[in-house]
């Protein structure tokens, strides 16, 4: 449902069905049904040894929405395991919009054994996006660590205004 910038009404102006449908019905629908995309996997088995930021999954964790212009919120929650040295080695996460990393890049550091599971949640807001189809991808890399694994993940992309 497309958003139309609301018109300014004038005293004595004749209100037509077409105007009401465009500026009331369609805009309310647009506010109610914001573009969104979601992916969740409670039993995934992603792993990486990449020192450079790469897509976690080029298919399922690359979500696209047709924005109506404005800001887009990306929420991520993932369960991570880090194989490497204690405390120093880590997995870094990030989200790209159309290939460009934005916002925070959480770091997950190993503690305890390789099997220890660390839950990380973060969000990124991409601001002032144009009216277009935009692609949002979850990325990661390792710093020092032998590898990082992801065994659960949820990702939500939603236009917020």
């Amino acid at each position: 449902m497309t958003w139309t910038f609301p018109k300014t009404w004038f005293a004595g102006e004749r209100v037509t069905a077409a105007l009401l449908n465009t500026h009331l019905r369609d805009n309310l629908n647009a506010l109610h049904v914001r573009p969104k995309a979601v992916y969740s996997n409670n039993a995934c088995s992603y792993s990486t040894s990449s020192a450079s930021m790469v897509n976690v999954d080029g298919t399922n964790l690359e979500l696209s929405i047709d924005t109506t212009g404005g800001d887009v919120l990306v929420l991520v929650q993932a369960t991570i395991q880090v194989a490497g040295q204690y405390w120093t080695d880590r997995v870094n996460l990030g989200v790209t919009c159309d290939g460009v990393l934005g916002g925070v890049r959480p770091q997950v550091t190993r503690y305890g054994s390789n099997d220890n599971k660390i839950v990380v949640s973060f969000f990124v807001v991409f601001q002032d996006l144009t009216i277009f189809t935009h692609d949002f991808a979850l990325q990661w890399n390792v710093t020092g660590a032998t590898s990082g694994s992801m065994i659960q993940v949820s990702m939500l992309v939603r236009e917020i205004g």
Partner: protein
Amino acid sequence: MERKIRDLEFERAEINIGLLHQELKAALGDHFTGVSFDGKKLRVHLFDDAPADIDGLAGPVVAAHTSSDESAADKRQKEDAALLDSLRGKKVDQWKQEEKDRLLEILLSRVGGI
């Protein structure tokens, strides 16, 4: 500025990611930045400016990879686990000096000392 990455894709049922990384690093050198795996599809990550003839070197390495083989880090981890198990069953005065030295290294690595 992040360097651009391009991927080579292969089908694999299992990998030892640490070992395969070492094997590909030895074959592809600094053009290679790592691998990613989702349980079925293996992606070999190369820097985008890697020469095209590098691509042909990855396939044979992936095909020859044996996931049940162990990397040096895997072996060290198993040896460390075995050492800790054996020390738990002995009194401290029965510990050998080399066992104490290695235990100290393990403990220091766990608290971030080394």
